[in-house]
């Protein structure tokens, strides 16, 4: 049984009187492909904001790689090995695609490396993502899938232990979904633990080894994809019947 890489213990988060997360506990094992599902507004993004540090959880503890994340700044968490993508891609729009990737390499995974080494690393990642031909283009001309891939590539460039992909496939066609899945599975095989938040059920069920479902800020189900699909609570949360 592999060790837990991420332990989430009774995490809660309120926005004024609204409870976005209440007492959420779960754990993600090292090397695991972990799915996080739930209807809109169920608290998925809030949970990953608390993990990545862009939001501060009001209660509970998050332990990553044996280290309590409480009070740790976002960029320190990135350095510790947690990176994430954003639901709506947020490229550095004044830079080329290549320069976008150089930022996490220069500031996290390749500290102290020469500009040439950094460029080489960025290029090899772009090749893996099938975007090498676009290296020197601006981000404004990118298609939806290219933006999504850039968002993923930038997070992967930091060489995280844990990658959190927040709806990396939203708005993509079937073939494009398969392409992104393939990339994620490849990096998982290389040892990267991945949390996938997704609304495309086919993708998240095919990808995940274990899934939890959030509804109204609470974990309502946890198990293998097969178990989750059959779960009455999950069905009710999604369909409201």
């Amino acid at each position, binding site marked *: 049984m592999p060790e837990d890489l991420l332990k989430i213990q009774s995490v809660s988060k309120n926005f004024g009187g609204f409870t976005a997360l209440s007492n959420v506990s779960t754990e993600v094992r090292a090397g695991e492909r972990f799915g996080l599902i739930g209807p809109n507004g169920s608290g998925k993004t809030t949970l990953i904001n608390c993990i990545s540090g862009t939001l501060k959880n009001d209660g509970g503890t998050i332990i990553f790689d044996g280290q309590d994340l409480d009070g740790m*700044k976002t*960029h320190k968490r990135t350095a510790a090995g947690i990176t994430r993508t954003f639901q709506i891609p947020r490229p550095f729009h004044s830079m080329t695609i290549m320069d976008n990737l150089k930022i996490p390499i220069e500031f996290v995974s390749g500290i102290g490396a020469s500009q040439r080494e950094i460029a080489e690393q960025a290029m090899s990642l772009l090749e893996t993502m099938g975007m090498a031909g676009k290296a020197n283009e601006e981000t404004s001309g990118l298609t939806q899938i290219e933006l999504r891939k850039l968002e993923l590539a930038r*997070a992967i460039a930091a060489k995280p232990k844990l990658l959190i992909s927040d709806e990396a496939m939203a708005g993509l066609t079937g073939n494009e979904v398969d392409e992104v899945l393939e990339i994620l599975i490849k990096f998982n095989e290389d040892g990267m633990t991945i949390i996938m938040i997704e609304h495309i059920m086919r993708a998240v069920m095919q990808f995940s080894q274990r899934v939890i479902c959030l509804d109204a800020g609470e974990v309502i189900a946890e198990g293998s994809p097969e178990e989750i699909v059959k779960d009455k609570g999950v069905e009710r949360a999604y369909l409201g019947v």
Partner: protein
Amino acid sequence: MVMRYKFEIGCVLFVALAFTITQVDINNFFFFAAFAVLQYVMIATAWNILGGYAGYINFGTAGFLGVGSYTAIGLIQWSDVSIVGQIIAAAFVSGLLGLAIGYFTLRLKGVFFAIATLALAIVLETVVNNWDFVGGAAGISILPPRNPELLGVLIVDRKGGGIFDNNKELLFFLIAFMAIFSVWVARVIEKGKLGRGLNAIKDNEEAAECMGVPTLRLKLIATTISGSLMGAAGGIFPSYLTFIDPPTAFNLEFAINSLAMPMIGGTFTWIGPVVGALLLGTVQQVAIVTISSELNLLIIGVMLVLFVTIAPHGIVGWFMKKK
């Protein structure tokens, strides 16, 4: 090897040229006008480190400049500190101010940061207005020291025994040196890790933080350097004007010019503020002599509107696109 240090060699040549000019017998008005233009090169460059690279619009240029000026005044009142000492102290105090302001206001974004920095200038002006030691609201006159020496060398002597014949030449040389130094600093930042981090902040601060960029630290470094350079430009100001009062030292015109010059020149590279300041600074100096000193801001206003609509990336951006 020579190619690699092309820029640095250019800097040295520029300083040498500035020195040579002071040794030639020309009208003193040239030094007076060129000082104003070069001071703007310095201020615009300093502004751009925070405003252009990191995208934080600072409306408080006058505050940093005024603090620099009044640091120098304070030192003059307290004992006879040399002009170089005044400038260094002004840079130090304004740098500290930048650090403090950065710490308290950088959680504010966009227009809120701009408002906070504007308020800073006004608060500081009020403080100085009520501080008699530095002249208070009535202002203060200062006389340049007669035959100043630095490290035992006679700097200015009207009879021709010193390095410079008069104080205007000395001040021109100093501002030329400081302006080129500021441009060098801005260029080093732009080409380095700090500049790339600041750029990421400008594009998307949250994404930058998530990609491992220590956003708060980089912003504090930028405000400190930017404030410090503005302070140095202010530190030399009282000696240049020989009379200074709060409305002059904390003039809002500095805030507008320091913002308009980089925007017109182009904010994304060090050349932009230099081009903008040389262009607008010269136009303003010519306008002061030929038309009226009140027309300055109108010129800036019209040009700013024109550039924002026609060439949003400034003059430099316009030419780079053409290439």
